[in-house]
């Protein structure tokens, strides 16, 4: 009998599988919102590991997302014609591989960014990660192989019958895997190091923890899942432009983490779902949509700065 958490994961994956089987009968708009929610949860849960649990304020999550999105899209679109026969013409094999590769390149980018800049703290770290996000965007704009400023389009999406199933399943399963990995990591001996760094870096160092190593690990793992989310995003939208991964996208993810209550699992997931659905619901207000969104953000920060979903019940246990 495997432990309870693994049973939960298996049950969740089974739900994702059933949902995938019925995806064809769902309202396309509903499916689109559902998939966006999936991507948001992956992004928010992974940033929560960096910002919330390890206490390192990063504003460059969209940059890692872009790296993963472009890697995955290059593998399935630009090189897809060559790679697909190698895996027996099966998108069910190619897409997970492409997502994994996207995650790995994003993790590599996370390591390259994190290793030098995690010596900095607070606002400075925020600005450096913001700077890296912008640099990644400018580099993508200048690389002709991935379409330059025009970006990539015509990626396989859910509209393509051969790809539809695997894209839906991957997008529904990824958030569950992300949450499971982040949760499992934090409840391991190693994960206590992240919490120690967040609580008091000086004290953690005095206890003999190699704080830099913990910070970089959190950064790399977070970047990996941001890359996976980017790959999923690419195959939901079907087009990629470097401008889509700008500062505002990073902010959107940070807002989910803050509203959910930094360093809380359930709250952050709920906030990711709520904000994604909210931004869809506000569409009917047309031009006023973003005004309402920003007003809501200010009011929430003034009235509930500790996060929306922070009742005592969900306080992180023994952390």
């Amino acid at each position, binding site marked *: 009998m495997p432990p309870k958490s693994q049973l939960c994961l298996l049950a969740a994956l089974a739900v994702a599988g059933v949902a995938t089987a019925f995806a064809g009968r769902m309202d396309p708009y509903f499916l689109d919102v559902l998939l966006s929610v999936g991507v948001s949860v992956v992004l928010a849960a992974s940033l929560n590991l960096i910002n919330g649990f390890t206490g390192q304020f990063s504003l460059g999550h969209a940059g890692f997302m872009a790296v993963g999105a472009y890697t995955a899209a290059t593998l399935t679109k630009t090189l897809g014609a060559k790679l697909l026969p190698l895996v027996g013409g099966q998108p069910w094999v190619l897409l997970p591989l492409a997502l994994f590769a996207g995650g790995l390149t994003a993790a590599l980018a996370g390591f390259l960014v994190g290793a030098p800049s995690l010596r900095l703290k607070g*606002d400075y770290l925020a600005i450096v990660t913001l700077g890296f996000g912008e640099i990644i965007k400018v580099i993508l704009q200048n690389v002709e192989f991935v379409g330059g400023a025009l970006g990539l389009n015509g990626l396989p999406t859910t509209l393509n019958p051969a790809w539809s199933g695997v894209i839906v399943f991957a997008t529904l399963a990824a958030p569950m895997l992300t949450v499971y990995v982040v949760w499992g990591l934090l409840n391991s001996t190693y994960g206590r190091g992240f919490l120690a760094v967040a609580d008091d870096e000086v004290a953690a160092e005095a206890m003999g923890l190699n704080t830099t190593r913990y910070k970089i690990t959190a950064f790399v793992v977070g970047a990996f899942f941001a890359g996976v989310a980017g790959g999923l995003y690419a195959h939901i939208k079907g087009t990629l432009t470097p401008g889509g991964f700008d500062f505002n996208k990073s*902010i959107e993810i940070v*807002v989910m983490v803050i509203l959910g209550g930094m360093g809380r699992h359930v709250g952050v997931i709920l906030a990711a779902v709520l904000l994604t659905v909210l931004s869809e619901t506000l569409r009917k207000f047309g031009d006023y949509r973003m005004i309402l969104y920003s007003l809501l953000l200010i009011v929430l920060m003034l009235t509930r700065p500790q996060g929306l979903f922070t009742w005592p019940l969900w306080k992180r246990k023994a952390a």
Partner: protein
Amino acid sequence: MEFAQQLLNGISLGAIYALIALGYTMVYGVLRFINFAHSDVFMLGAYAGLLLTPKLGGGTFGGGLAVLAASMAVTAALGVVIEKVAYRPLRGRSTLTVLITAIGVSLLIQNVAQNRQVGFGPNPKAFPAVFPQKTFSWEVAPAMTNTVAATADTAPTVNVVPAKTLSVNTNQLAVLVVSLALLGALHWIVHHTKIGTAMRAVSFNATASSLVGINNDAIISFTFALGSALAGAGGILYAMNYPTIDPLMGTLPGLKAFVAAVLGGIGNLPGAALGGLLIGLLETFVKGSRWSTYSDAIAFAILILILLFRPAGLLGKLRVEKV
């Protein structure tokens, strides 16, 4: 002469960055947080200039100064309102909370400005002439013709080398003169007036300053007014040199000015001016080279290098963390 022209353009861009950077650095000095809405105050300064120019008789020397002064007053008032409504209730809360609120305020201003009914609409608008327009050019090398003598199988050719000129227009002059005057005024306020001394005291140690009878809230309001007025002036000067303005025009100059503030050492006023000048020069020279498409990334690359090798900035002092 290419070089001298670029130098001139770089200095005038740098002077604008310096004006914005001063606002970031002053607010950071007293409140220790990044005022993300600052770049939008800069944008609103440009729009104030657009709306006030026909009313106050812009296009003449006196009218131009009136437009500048009135717009600065408008943005100063805006800065104070933003601080009162959005930041003051959060005094004493964690930096992150204030940071996110600042981002919210920034988004709000941008989106209200983009709205067609209540704002200015999303389309770029042409910026009017605030000061009288005139271009001065100096011919530094006269036009020349080189005649290449005919050889056995080619006809003689005449190469015309155009005259090299260095040109300055009144807009660029206005940028230099106005920003120098404002920097001078700021220096005088901060170092030779009572309120300036109080500002430095709050920035040095907020608890101690309130103990000696300084009204911290009033000083913080004043700092926002001062920083926002400088950003408003920067907005007008920027718009004069770049013909159109739009509601999102503040984002990139704002980020670069912030980089300038960090480069010079955040919280340090001469540092912000120096950083602004350096970033402006560098950006102009990179734009003129064959890496021009990377010019937006260069400011951030510099920032990262500076933070890694001299985290306190060029003129800043490193504070040692005490446990």
